């Protein structure tokens, strides 16, 4: 990832402010990245955000193993089954004992509406085990397995820790699979925008003049259009008969096509302010080529800002994908993202019947919050010489 790349930069690329005297003696010899780390560490919320972000991405990596079932498994006889609470201890004659279980369901029929509803049956007990055999899957598309972190010990009886949707699909599994799609679309989208942003922003900031003016007008134009209607328009134009993977990339491209402007602004702003800095002038006077000046002297001094802005633009991508999929214009089953899951909750009737369908929203909330806190902390730390 970009952060590790950045850390391998040589320590002598410290910014010009390093000469500041009012810093501890250990501070005065620390490299830029060390200073940033120290400053970042002090930001508690950012540290927490960073930890949560790491956990979320870890979940995204080990999706197949972590989810109790697969998101595509339809069980028509478990329509809108409510969440089952996981009990760790079981009451026996000798007292409480470690033995995880959930209560099973019984079916009640609403005589008025003639509707079947599931209710938790305290009498029934479904044993829960860790590292159980269950639904077979192909880990990372590489090797076959059926090992799941947690699940019912009896493969015939499904468990729904977070309930089921209208087709009896397990919400928890869908959410875990959705983590991979939602988080990766954010990351991929940001990297695409990053590429466009750094290219156009850099050109704009470095050359200035007419080029700058033109690119700025384009950015202003894109920013002045309300994004959701525009996204909707573009996403609706994606042919419905495309395979899911192509839709996924199509959506990512659409999102980053509009999302690059923010990054371009940051890059340009940095370039413009750096261009006049003495150390850049000094490098030029020393006869460094334009490319060397940019890569050796300018980029290291705003790299940290770029990382911070990148982190801060991931949430926007996630939210955009969620909104589009929620509207039915983004991803579609069998690809599951949090937005696809929330689409189930689009009308008040389903929400009233199965309020747990809103839980994927919580995942969006947590991910976006964590990334925002992380990005905020990074942005503050990005300028360690600035108090």
């Amino acid at each position, binding site marked *: 990832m970009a952060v590790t790349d950045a850390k391998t930069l040589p320590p002598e690329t410290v910014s010009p402010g390093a000469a500041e005297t009012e810093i501890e003696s250990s501070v005065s010899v620390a490299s830029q990245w060390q200073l940033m780390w120290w400053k970042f560490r002090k930001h508690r919320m950012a540290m927490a955000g960073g930890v949560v972000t790491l956990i979320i991405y870890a979940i995204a990596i080990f999706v197949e193993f972590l989810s109790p079932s697969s998101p595509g498994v339809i069980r028509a006889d478990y329509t809108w089954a409510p969440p089952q609470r996981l009990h760790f201890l079981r009451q026996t004659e000798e007292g409480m004992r470690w033995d995880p279980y959930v209560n099973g369901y019984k079916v009640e029929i609403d005589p008025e509406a003639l509707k079947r509803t599931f209710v938790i049956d305290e009498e029934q007990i479904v044993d829960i085990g860790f590292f159980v055999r269950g639904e077979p899957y192909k880990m990372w598309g590489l090797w076959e397995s059926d090992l799941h972190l947690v699940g019912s010990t009896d493969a015939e009886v499904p468990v729904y820790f977070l309930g089921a949707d209208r087709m009896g699909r397990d919400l928890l599994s869908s959410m875990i699979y959705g983590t991979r799609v939602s988080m990766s679309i954010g990351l991929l989208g940001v990297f695409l925008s990053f590429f466009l942003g750094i290219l156009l922003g850099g050109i704009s900031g470095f050359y200035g003049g007419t080029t700058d003016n033109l690119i700025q*007008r384009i950015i*202003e*134009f894109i*920013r*002045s*259009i*309300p*994004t*959701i*209607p*525009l996204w*909707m*328009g*573009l996403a*609706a*134009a994606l*042919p419905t008969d495309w395979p899911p993977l192509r839709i996924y990339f199509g959506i990512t491209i659409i999102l980053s096509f509009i999302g690059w402007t923010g990054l371009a602004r940051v890059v340009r702003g940095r370039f413009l302010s750096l261009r006049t800095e003495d150390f850049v002038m000094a490098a030029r006077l020393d006869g460094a080529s334009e490319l060397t000046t940019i890569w050796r002297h300018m980029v290291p001094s705003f790299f940290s800002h770029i990382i911070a802005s990148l982190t801060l633009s991931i*949430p926007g991508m996630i*939210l955009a994908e*969620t*909104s589009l999929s*929620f*509207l*039915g*214009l983004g991803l579609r089953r069998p690809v599951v993202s949090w937005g696809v899951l*929330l689409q189930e*909750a*689009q009308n*008040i009737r389903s*929400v*009233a019947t199965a*309020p747990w369908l*809103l839980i994927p*929203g919580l995942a*969006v*909330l947590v991910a*976006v*919050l964590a990334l*925002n*806190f992380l990005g905020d902390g990074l942005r503050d730390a990005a300028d360690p010489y600035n108090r």
Partner: protein
Amino acid sequence: MLQFLLRRLLYMVPTLLAISIVAFVIIQLPPGDFLTTMVAAMAAQDEDMDQAAMAALEEQYGLGQPVHIQYLKWMQGIVTRGDFGDSFGWNKPVSELVWGRLALTFVLSLASLLFVWVVAFPIGIYSAVKQYSIGDYFATFIGFLGLATPNFLLALILMYIAFKFFNQSVGGLFSPEYQEAPWTWGRVADLFAHLWVPVVIIGTAGTASLIRIMRANLLDELRKPYVVTARAKGLPEWRLLFKYPVRVALNPFVSTVGWVLPTLVSGAAIVSIVLSLPTTGPLLIRALLQQDMYLAASFIMLLSILTVIGTLVSDLLLAWLDPRIRME
């Protein structure tokens, strides 16, 4: 000032042109032209299309002719006759469908904008002046939460709460008795009674980011030497605060309309769909899902133009507030 206004108006022309081109591209994106879609749709309903009518449409939209001719024909219709093309989904000219909805969207966005300002301005000042106080942390936390919650989710949650605990529906902008009624004072009052729910939902994210912007700007300004100068004159602290840093921080605050407005219009679109408000949102999504492209593109274009005009107004307001910009 007049020169400034003229220059800004001139700047708008290429923007408007670009918007119309983007809208036209959206019309052209789906495979096939709308006429074939239309014929297919009618055929599906066992209706035949009159050859003469088809030829007329073909002539009107310049179908079969090069793309730029089609674009020019479309633009010509809009500029000269206010004709945005036809919606085959509704079998009506687009112009009959958009204006009423657009007006309500405008009211909704404007109300949200006012809400955002009125709420964010004092909270932002408080957060900056009482930096690191409990109130500041609380505002920051709520702000982050507001930013992280997609507004359609907020709408869903509010609807669920209203349904579950108050057994009430929060959707719509009018009570049933005013739904189709002509405009009267009673209908206006009814509109405002319903308006606050979507306004709060749409405004939340914008409020959150504006609080953060106001706070950051004001913190910046509070450290500027002119504040010390004013303090050294013996001004009381609160008078100093409002005369100088708050006044200076107001400028970037006003200029944020430029990007808050697009977000609000975006938010209004999606929230309207969830709450089924009679604004552009639900019609736009339906048009897009049915590939009713003239209707959809007209909506997108008009919403964008609305936003551009809003931005222009904010620029003028900013120039009026800030002598540096006015005299540039």
